[in-house]
């Protein structure tokens, strides 16, 4: 491809992404006739349902991140340390959520854990929250696992483990004080991606009837004109902030240049 053609392709690509975003952002500012204003944003932010659903989704995101870290870090560590041959299998399993639609999993949950089952999780709000958490953890699994596994690849897991053991450390100390701090940037990358996924997730929350931010956005979209655009801009801003934080954390890490 010649240089001008490459530029044309780049500009076309950028326009493809930017024009709808720009259009949406511009539309979200036109609630007041004739002038640009932040009325739509004010209306959204003042909506008590926004605060409630957003708060719920933030809480779910935080818990999902915690569960994800507790599940993924020891697994990825153990696979690298003791079962390197199983790595492709585990990677394949963690990628499954990308090919199995969330709606299939949600229906599976509802069928397995309905009120007539041996574990009627859908019968109570708490139980449904647990199912939602499981669903979110699974949705975030490909991102969390890849991020942590990449982080582990950059440290000499085996030698650091052996060094810790020879200094008297048990598994808890090794994971908590040696492995986790050395993959903290990777864990945070996974955490921010998880946060972005959970905040915008619709299928699980809607089917399990939980008061999350995704279904709220959909409801607002049914009833109003300008507010949905404002909400979409807010959602994008959250995602971008997460991406920015990944970059910021990576850059400010004191020992990122350190090898094993």
């Amino acid at each position: 491809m010649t240089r001008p053609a490459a530029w044309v392709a780049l500009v076309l690509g950028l326009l493809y992404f930017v024009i709808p975003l720009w259009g949406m952002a511009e539309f979200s500012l036109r609630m007041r006739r004739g002038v640009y204003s932040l009325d739509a944003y004010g209306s959204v932010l003042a909506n008590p349902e926004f605060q409630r659903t957003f708060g719920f989704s933030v809480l779910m995101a935080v818990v999902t991140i915690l569960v994800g870290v507790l599940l993924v870090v020891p697994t990825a560590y153990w696979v690298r340390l003791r079962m390197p041959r199983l790595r492709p299998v585990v990677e394949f399993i963690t990628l499954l959520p990308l090919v199995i639609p969330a709606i299939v999993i949600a229906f599976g949950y509802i069928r397995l854990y309905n009120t007539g089952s041996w574990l009627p999780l859908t019968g109570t709000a708490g139980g449904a929250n647990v199912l939602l958490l499981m669903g979110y953890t699974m949705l975030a699994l490909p991102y969390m696992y890849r991020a942590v596994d990449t982080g582990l690849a950059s440290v000499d897991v085996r030698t650091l483990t052996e060094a810790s053991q020879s200094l008297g450390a048990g598994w808890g100390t090794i994971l908590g004080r040696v492995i986790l701090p050395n993959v903290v940037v990777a864990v945070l990358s996974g955490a921010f991606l998880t946060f972005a996924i959970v905040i915008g997730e619709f299928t699980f929350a809607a089917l399990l009837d939980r008061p999350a931010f995704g279904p709220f956005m959909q409801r607002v979209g049914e009833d109003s004109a300008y507010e949905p655009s404002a909400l979409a801009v807010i959602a994008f801003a959250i995602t971008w902030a997460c991406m920015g934080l990944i970059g910021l954390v990576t850059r400010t890490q004191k020992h990122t240049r350190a090898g094993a």
Partner: protein
Amino acid sequence: MAYLDILNLQKSFGANRVVRDFSLPIDKGEFVSLLGPSGCGKTTVLRMVAGFETPDEGAIRIEGRDVVPLRPNQRNIGMVFQSYALFPNLTVAGNVGFGLKVAGVAGAETRARVAEMLELIGLPEMGGRYPFQLSGGQQQRVALARALAPRPRVLLLDEPLSALDAKVRVRLRGEIREIQRRLGITTIFVTHDQEEALSISDRVVVMNGGVADQVGTPFAIYNQPATPFVAGFVGALTPIEATVVDPRAGTVSSGGMVMHLGRALPMAAGTVVPIALRPESVRLGREAGREIVLPATARAVEFMGSVIRIRAEAGGQSFLLDTFNRADAPPPQPGEPVEISFSGRDVIVIGG
């Protein structure tokens, strides 16, 4: 009873037997090197002592107690790795104090011990730095301090100098030996570098194919090699095949050349015996006390600075000889006729 007693260790990985019937008693405060080529089993022995590998058979006793059933973190054995293995997220002081913190030692005591260790390795001002801010040699010294801080019963060094450049290596090996002597800590050092092993150790174990071919002082290993492998692996030499002429008088012959070794030989006349000459035993030109003089041709000349290594050929036999560099006496050119001389007393009888 030895302080650290390694008894009949066996270890296989699948069908591959990497350690065979390995036994080694080590006294308290002794510095023993395991020397051998890659795959000889030396690192596996070290890892079994550390607890990272479990022997198929055998025992490892420290002060009379078998440590094989213990996990690595229960053995109180310090280890230094080839790749330093410092914790990148901790400062130098954090690294050195890690073992003490794990053991639940009080903060003030840990700080005092860390300061003492940093003083010991000559880096008293470096406590606040991170590993990536240190040179390779400094990192390895910190790794040594970290291993020593919890006062281990045994110190294991797994090729700790291999990743360093030549000058730092020589300096650091001297420092390691000095610290080891000062603390009197029982140490096993694994290396494939024979010069390193000979220069630093009380005793050297030369390993080959999972077996200890020879255990002895550096002097004995170098001058009385027990097997052709030890002779060939430790130092350079000229191997010669000779026939015993008179065992009581210590006379052998090779290619018409008769050599009086000056000591009786424990084999019958007519036995073919492998003998060898170290390069430093052979001289360029005639010299008093070196009764065997051979006309030869210089074939290769390797200038190594203070020493010049020459390969000369005499009667179809290749000889290696070392001569000190002298500014007023340039070495011969390849192809140049020379005379070489040596004494029968300098001949090494391999396994004799």
